[in-house]
């Protein structure tokens, strides 16, 4: 959500504003002196530059002021704002693009060397030991017999809380703290899906949201499709099934509640891993408002997967939670990064409780976070390699296997082979071996793996340098791995294994950074894309920035957090950081995408979720595609609901190899929100059902409901449509209401009409310019109908204008246009005519209006307002009077939208029900009938009164409506006047509003029906003469009729036209639009 700085109210969400087009296009001094071409240029031509552009905006939902803004149309950045009447200031420079990756211990930042030095020295309280924690934190005992792949001690699961769940019809046991994936692994289940196109068995591949394979359907307690089993927290009674690549939506309404919250902070830290925790720790103790969000149930990030420094995590968490303005959001995925540091996150609040979720608690909550600064500590995803048959269940990312073992004590297999291109898999292999998993061999593509390989050998693991995996075997589970010297056909060896751990390198999770507008660069040393520069106030820290050394990441995170709050005026403190023991000297990774060797016919999968192989990508490049955006769309690689988290860079690497170009030149596909799938229900929040859109009701609404009204939606209003009596359908009810009103008396709730108080010495001048007819000559106490047009001469709105006093008018607008008309008035007043001393104020709700209509209306009014002289002479048509009606102070207008004698009685809405009931009672002897919008429409249509927006569509002039009389010839100018001299508005074949009488008086034409001249449908293209805008049955006429816009319609009166309805051509006769009482005899009663 863009922030627009209102010159008065300051920065507000863009949704509070309306756009007003190009600024500094003044209304011509004297339009009558312009040529048609010059006038057309003013009306229709605007600049459309790339770059800074001066525009008009209005703060609609705030102070209602119009102002100017210079916006860069290529970046959407608002460069400056200034008040109307001020000259355009020198535009400030666009926000600078700066590096989003701060320095860390390895690259000192001269601006803050002291802090970083302190930080490094500060943290001496870490776990102390360098070796992975072999024993974990879980308590032993229980479950091993039913969960054969459960480690006896490792994992952060609660072994005292066993949980029962069902997967593919089989019941299993797991523990609180498990994910569905880890619980399945502990039960020896790794195959969790079949692939979408090839139906190959697929296994759990990862331990997080990047999971491409194990995407399951939750069946109970509420059906939910396509959830990665690696992110589903286990609960008692969970029922899930594996999916063949596609899920099923629930067919019953979701009973859960969903919620949204806005929050603001000085610093948002995304990711509570080492770098994110360090950033939060540096910032939160200062008193700054800090939000830390993490997708997991607890902080720790990668430490949870390695079981290192968990004591530091716990201490840091306690310190953070003691800070007054700190908020930790667990189970919260920040999924979108938008303009002006606006980020959206979804918090999963009760999903993990299963059927025990409290009903009153929102299941998910969308956080709308506006952050002064953002630290993205989103970590990295391990990526795979394209080798033959690289998709069998049992093939898993190396670090993910380690995570399953350390977080949940779930062993993904018994006998593993490790296949890597870099150092990181060694750490995983050593830790897994320590946990008791048999690691048969480490296959390293690098010829000289260095110190890590020595450590592995010392632990009794065979290391095969300069080797690669060239094939796998197995069915429901991997059974064997074939290995050969890298790029060579000979020297193959086969290992029996039920687990193949793969590491093709690491991709920083740059999704949010990229969404923020940040640019990535290819890091040659890391062999991946890392964040580079950004125009928003964001920094990237830790693995997300390409810093994979733990000590560096911690320092970098702390520094980023400190910088953010220092920029807001807080004094950052140095957080305690864990001591990180020295690690073996790193050996650079080898950049491998497609692994050479192995059977040519075996598939090498790139995108597991879409079943896209190297061969598929080769077909794409063979077809001439040269961009990853194109190969993505050609092959669908990266388009599944995992959005290619593990496969995107791999696909880029494969395409680069196929094209023979460098991957750095090829880049990645675009990252777009959401980072992970978000349900529509969560996005809708509470804006659904009756709260999906405000329902506006009048003060009389309850009466209408009590009297059986059916309602019509008019904008956001609920208006009584008609009041059916026992057994009546709409047609019968409306005919009855029409008849009663024309023959005796009816009444309706007209409160929804917009009302605007126009006050000030220049009010008359102002209205003369806005309306096509003259308003300044109106006498106090009188009412005039008026039409408002746009500068192009097309009708915009109509209504009545009351002159309340010399300097005060009350104007009414159509129901749906009230806000637009007020905004229109303000725009002209504030931007074009600031010299006019006039103010406009909405008073729509200040008055409730009861229309009393029909020959008996005068009698009833007289009985209710004995002090009011009601005779035609004393109270003529188009006059208004203040009076006391039924004891209530009222303003009574004698106006008519039906052609009948009629009054509109305006009172305070606080008294409206009393008035309405008094009218009902006083009218009872005359059979007074409440009527709704449908009857109103029929009555007005019988008189040929147009409804703006129904009989017009923005292309209709007053003259087209046959209302030349409402267009002043005396006024020098008014909005729209010049356009009536344009050739286009004078064309004889313009569409005119006319009446239509179907030949069969019982045939009701559907509104929108086209009209043609021929009695037999000619071959297309059929010349269209116009269309039906309104169509009704008339009680007064005893037949159906319609209003229509017809080319040259007024010259066709009496002509026969045809209306294609279904397969028939319905003959109709063009008539005057005034079909009832053309003499106007009924107006005065």
């Amino acid at each position, binding site marked *: 959500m863009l922030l627009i700085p209102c010159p008065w109210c300051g920065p507000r969400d863009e949704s509070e504003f309306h756009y007003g087009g190009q600024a500094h296009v003044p209304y011509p001094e004297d339009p009558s002196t312009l040529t048609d071409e010059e006038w057309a240029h003013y009306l229709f031509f605007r600049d459309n530059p790339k770059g800074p552009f001066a525009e008009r905006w209005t703060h609609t*939902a705030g102070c209602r*002021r119009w102002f100017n803004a210079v916006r860069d149309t290529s970046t959407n950045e608002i460069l400056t704002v200034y008040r109307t009447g001020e000259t355009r200031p020198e535009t400030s420079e666009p926000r600078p693009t700066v590096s989003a990756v701060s320095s860390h211990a390895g690259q000192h930042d001269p601006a803050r060397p002291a802090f970083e030095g302190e930080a490094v020295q500060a943290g001496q309280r870490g776990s102390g030991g360098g070796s992975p924690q072999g024993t974990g934190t879980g308590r032993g005992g229980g479950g091993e017999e039913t969960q054969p792949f459960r480690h006896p001690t490792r994992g952060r699961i609660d072994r005292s809380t066993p949980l029962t769940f069902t997967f593919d019809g089989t019941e299993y046991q797991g523990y609180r703290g498990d994910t569905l994936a880890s619980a399945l692994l502990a039960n020896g289940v790794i195959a969790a899906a079949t692939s979408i196109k090839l139906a190959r068995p697929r296994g759990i591949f990862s331990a997080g949201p990047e999971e491409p394979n194990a995407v399951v359907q939750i069946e109970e307690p509420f059906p939910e499709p396509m959830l990665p089993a690696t992110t589903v927290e286990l609960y008692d009674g969970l029922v899930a099934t594996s999916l063949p690549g596609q899920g099923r939506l629930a067919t019953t309404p979701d009973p859960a509640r969903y919620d949204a*919250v806005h929050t603001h902070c000085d610093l948002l830290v995304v990711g509570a891993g080492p770098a994110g925790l360090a950033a939060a720790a540096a910032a939160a103790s200062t008193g700054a408002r800090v939000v830390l969000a993490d997708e997991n149930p607890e902080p720790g990030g990668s430490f949870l997967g390695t079981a290192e420094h968990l004591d530091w995590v716990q201490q840091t968490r306690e310190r953070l939670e003691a800070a007054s303005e700190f908020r930790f959001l667990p189970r919260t995925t920040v999924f979108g990064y938008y303009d002006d540091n606006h980020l959206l996150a979804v918090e999963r609040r009760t999903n993990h409780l299963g059927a025990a979720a409290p009903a009153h608690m929102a299941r998910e909550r969308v956080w709308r976070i506006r952050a002064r600064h953002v630290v993205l500590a989103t970590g990295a995803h391990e990526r795979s390699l394209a080798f033959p048959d690289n998709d069998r269940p049992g093939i898993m990312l190396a670090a993910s296997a380690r995570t399953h073992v350390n977080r949940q004590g779930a062993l993904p297999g018994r006998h593993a082979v490790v296949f890597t291109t870099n150092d990181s898999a060694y750490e995983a292999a050593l830790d897994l071996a320590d946990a008791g998993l048999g690691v048969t061999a480490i296959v390293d593509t690098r010829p000289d793996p260095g110190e890590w390989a020595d450590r592995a050998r010392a632990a009794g693991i065979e290391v095969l340098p300069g080797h690669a995996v060239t094939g796998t075997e197995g069915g429901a589970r991997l059974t064997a791995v074939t290995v050969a010297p890298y790029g060579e056909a000979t020297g193959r060896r086969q290992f029996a294994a039920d687990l193949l751990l793969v590491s093709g390198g690491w991709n920083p999770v740059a999704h949010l950074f990229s969404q923020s507008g940040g640019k990535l660069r290819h890091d040659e040393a890391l062999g991946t894309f890392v964040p580079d520069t950004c125009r928003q106030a964001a920094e990237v820290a830790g693995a997300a920035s390409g810093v994979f050394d733990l000590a560096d990441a911690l320092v970098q995170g702390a520094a980023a957090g400190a910088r953010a709050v220092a920029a807001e005026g807080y004094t950052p403190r140095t957080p305690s950081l864990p001591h990180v023991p020295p690690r073996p000297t790193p050996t650079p990774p080898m950049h491998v995408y497609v692994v050479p060797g192995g059977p040519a016919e075996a598939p090498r999968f790139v995108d597991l979720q879409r079943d896209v192989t190297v061969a598929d990508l080769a077909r794409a490049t063979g077809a001439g595609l040269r961009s990853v955006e194109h190969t993505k769309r050609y092959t669908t690689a990266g388009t599944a609901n995992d959005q290619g988290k593990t496969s995107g860079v791999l696909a880029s690497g494969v395409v680069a190899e196929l094209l023979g170009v460098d991957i750095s030149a090829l880049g990645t596909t675009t990252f777009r929100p959401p980072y992970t799938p978000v349900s529509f229900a969560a996005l809708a929040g509470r804006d659904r059902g009756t*709260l999906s859109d405000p329902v506006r009701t009048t003060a009389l609404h309850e009466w209408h409901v009590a009297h059986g009204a059916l309602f019509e939606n008019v904008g956001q209003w609920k208006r009584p449509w008609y009041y059916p009596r026992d057994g009546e359908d709409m047609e019968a009810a409306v005919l009855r209401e029409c008849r009663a009103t024309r023959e005796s008396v009816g009444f309706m709730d007209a409160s929804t009409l917009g009302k605007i108080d126009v006050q000030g010495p220049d009010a008359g001048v102002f209205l003369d310019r806005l309306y096509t007819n003259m308003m300044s000559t109106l006498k106090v106490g009188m009412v005039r109908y008026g039409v408002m047009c746009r500068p192009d001469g097309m009708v915009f709105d109509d209504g009545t204008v009351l002159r309340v006093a010399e300097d005060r008018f009350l104007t009414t607008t159509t129901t749906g246009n009230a806000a637009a008309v007020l905004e229109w008035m303000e725009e002209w007043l504030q931007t074009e005519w600031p010299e006019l001393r006039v103010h406009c104020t909405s008073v*729509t*709700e200040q008055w409730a209006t009861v229309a009393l209509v029909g020959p008996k209306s005068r009698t009833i009014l007289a009985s209710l307002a004995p002090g009011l002289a009601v005779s035609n002479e004393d109270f003529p048509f188009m006059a208004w009077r203040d009076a*006391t009606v*039924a004891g209530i102070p009222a303003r009574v207008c004698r106006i008519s939208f039906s052609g009948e004698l009629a009054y509109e009685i305006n009172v305070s*809405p606080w008294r409206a029900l009393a008035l309405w009931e008094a009218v009902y009672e006083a009218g009872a002897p005359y059979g007074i009938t409440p009527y709704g919008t449908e009857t109103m429409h029929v009555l007005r249509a019988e008189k040929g009164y147009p409804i703006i927006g129904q009989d017009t569509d923005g292309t209709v002039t007053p003259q087209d409506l046959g209302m030349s009389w409402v267009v002043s010839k005396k006024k020098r100018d008014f909005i729209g006047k010049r356009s009536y001299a344009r050739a286009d508005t004078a064309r004889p074949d313009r569409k005119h509003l006319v009446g239509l009488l179907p030949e069969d008086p019982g045939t009701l034409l559907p509104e929108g029906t086209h009209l043609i001249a021929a009695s037999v449908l000619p071959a297309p293209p059929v010349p269209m003469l116009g269309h039906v805008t309104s169509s009704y049955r008339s009680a007064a006429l005893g037949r159906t009729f319609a209003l229509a816009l017809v080319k040259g319609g007024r010259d066709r009166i009496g002509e026969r036209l045809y209306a294609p309805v279904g397969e028939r051509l319905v003959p109709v006769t063009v008539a005057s639009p005034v079909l009832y009482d053309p003499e106007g005899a009924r107006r005065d009663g």
Partner: protein
Amino acid sequence: MAETTPAATTALPRSPLSHAADRLAAATRASRGAIRLAELPFLTQLTVRLDAKGAAAEAVGLALDLQLPLQPNTVVRSGELTVLWLGPDEWLLVGRPGCEQELEGRVRQAAGEEPVSVVDVSAQRTTLLVSGPRAHDLLAHGCSLDLHPRAFGPGRCAQTTLGRTQVVLVARDEPRAGFWVLVRSTFAGYLADWLLDAATEYV
């Protein structure tokens, strides 16, 4: 007035949220002090428009025994009268019920010959009291403004949106005393429903 019908004269005025009063009270009780929701009906509300730099501004201020707030989105109080900045030449006067005419007279008299617009808008909006320790959290479910006391403390007001309707928010004078939410009368039913739904976890 002598011959008016008895039914009408005895009928009490009905406020826009009279039909929701019970539900608002029930939510207030159920929250055990966390939130308080109530309509403050029939408050006098006048829109006053005048040139902030002209003579009328000072004169009207004197007549009201306060200075019209000139800082955007601020409030000035004097006795029972609250004056809200709504725009650079626009204020909303909020007073006890029933003093519309007296207040309008005072403003017009003070302005004298200076151009001033005064419009009675008492029924245009109704006022909701949203207070209690969770008031700020409750509004944050649907208001994008920063309502933290650091940013929106006593003396602040704002025209903005809450849920899907426009409102005028006023921070009440005492710290933690919550807010006035002024809402167009015909949107009040929607807003009451919205607030009660958003309050589900606090009651």
